């Protein structure tokens, strides 16, 4: 088999205050896959995400991205390969204009001048936000900011896009638009979400993290229809949503 894009083995981590958040996580994601990372509040999903691009350093175990170990000397390359979109776009968009913000990542990778501008325009084009290039981020709607946040990461041409709760706080139309964008992208996606219909719609595969361990890994349909598993890990389908009656997209 080819080298997985994300290769997490026996990952354990305790926060400095002593709270152990991850207890030996194993996860492999291959090129072109779209995987949902599910789990109740406090399961350790965000903690896991922060290991994927080396913000947090594994207490035990290892993380490799396309074969490259996540280690101090590789950090810049790791951060180019793994694009993380955080939950609150106000945290992600910190520059005074959309253009500057999208340019921030590629500029850190050394791009300048016309090549940089091209990257910025391309990335904004992929999320349908080119017309907003000169606007300050705080004058955009929440959904628009979320899209720009995705663009800031796409501009680094990552091998894998990691999204922490991408559909939270979006109205139904923005939520669908974001789904269309994610589906149109030709990148590997790992998506942390509590929005189970969204996971079903977008991700053929789901991984369930609970109390710092992976408790299920399989097709999203199988995971969502396993009532015992769902109940054991505080996962609940929204009222009226039954994956059994909906054909897999």
């Amino acid at each position, binding site marked *: 088999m080819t080298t997985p894009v994300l290769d997490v083995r026996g990952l354990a981590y305790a926060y400095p205050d002593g709270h152990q958040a991850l207890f030996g996580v194993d996860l492999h994601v291959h090129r072109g896959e779209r995987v949902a990372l599910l789990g109740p509040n406090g399961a350790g999903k965000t903690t896991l995400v922060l290991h994927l691009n080396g913000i947090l350093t594994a207490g035990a175990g290892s993380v490799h991205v396309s074969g490259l170990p996540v280690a101090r000397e590789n950090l*810049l390359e790791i951060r180019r390969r793994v694009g993380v979109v955080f939950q609150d776009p106000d945290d992600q968009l910190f520059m*005074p204009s959309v253009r500057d913000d999208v340019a*921030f990542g590629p500029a850190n990778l050394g791009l300048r001048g016309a090549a940089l501008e091209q990257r910025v325009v391309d990335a904004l084009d992929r999320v349908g936000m080119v017309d907003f290039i000169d606007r300050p981020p705080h004058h955009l709607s929440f959904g628009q900011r979320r899209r720009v946040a995705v663009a800031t990461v796409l501009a680094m041409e990552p091998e894998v896009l990691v999204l922490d709760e991408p559909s939270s706080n979006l109205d139904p139309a923005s939520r669908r638009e974001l789904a269309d964008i994610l589906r149109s992208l030709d990148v590997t996606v790992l998506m942390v979400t509590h929005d189970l219909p969204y996971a079903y719609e977008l991700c053929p595969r789901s991984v369930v993290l609970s109390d710092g361990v992976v408790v299920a890994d399989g097709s999203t349909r199988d995971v969502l229809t396993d009532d015992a598993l769902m109940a054991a890990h505080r996962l609940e389908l929204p009222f009226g949503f039954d994956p059994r009656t909906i054909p897999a997209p």
Partner: protein
Amino acid sequence: MGAGHGHQLHFHGHSPVHRMPAHLKLLSLLSFIVLVVATPREQYWAFVVYALLLAGVVAISGVPAGYLLRRMVVEVPFVVFAALMPFVATGPRVQVGPFTVSEAGLLAAWGLLAKGTLGVLASLTLGATTEPRDLLLGLERLRLPHQLVQIMGFMMRYLEVVTDELRRMRIARESRGFTATSVRAWPALGSTAGALFIRSYERGERIHLAMLSRGYNGRLPVTHQAAATPAQWAQAGILPALALATAVLAVAL
């Protein structure tokens, strides 16, 4: 770009003043203010000349005078202070209408008012003709310490986020029947301030993570080369040159 989305100070336009690189405008403003401040306040005519020069710049920029005048309210505290000076200062007295006031105080008040007004008006003109982002780039080109420019950039970006957070906290307080009417309300206001501090601090940490995730290594990348042409240097020099001539005359006479 429409006018609606700039900052409150900015007045959208395409005049030569708007198009001039921000660092030149900053230099021009700085030298103008220094010259105004250095001019002896007894030379009343010099301040009239300065005001006319400034009016010329405003006219070229196409920013309506009313737009600038409305924003001059920031100067009110100084005006009040200046108005008090003739009454509290000591020394020989002169009769002005129904009042007997200190002569030295009157002169000091005039100096403060004239120099202050010119400075405020000049700064407002800069603000009205320059996008905040360009202003930051201008400061950076003028070799202001990198960290300082970064801090100002973040302040600009997050001012509205923090104000909004404050507004939401106030609404949450008032929805639970709180009104700040007496000293007894202060503890509640204090804890609001504390909560705001913690929230802002935590947001700062999250932003830092987001920056690291995109390869931040302690320096914001410099991506803009807003180089100035010799013609623009010459244009930017007109105001300071005329002001310099005025100042020299005023000191010499």
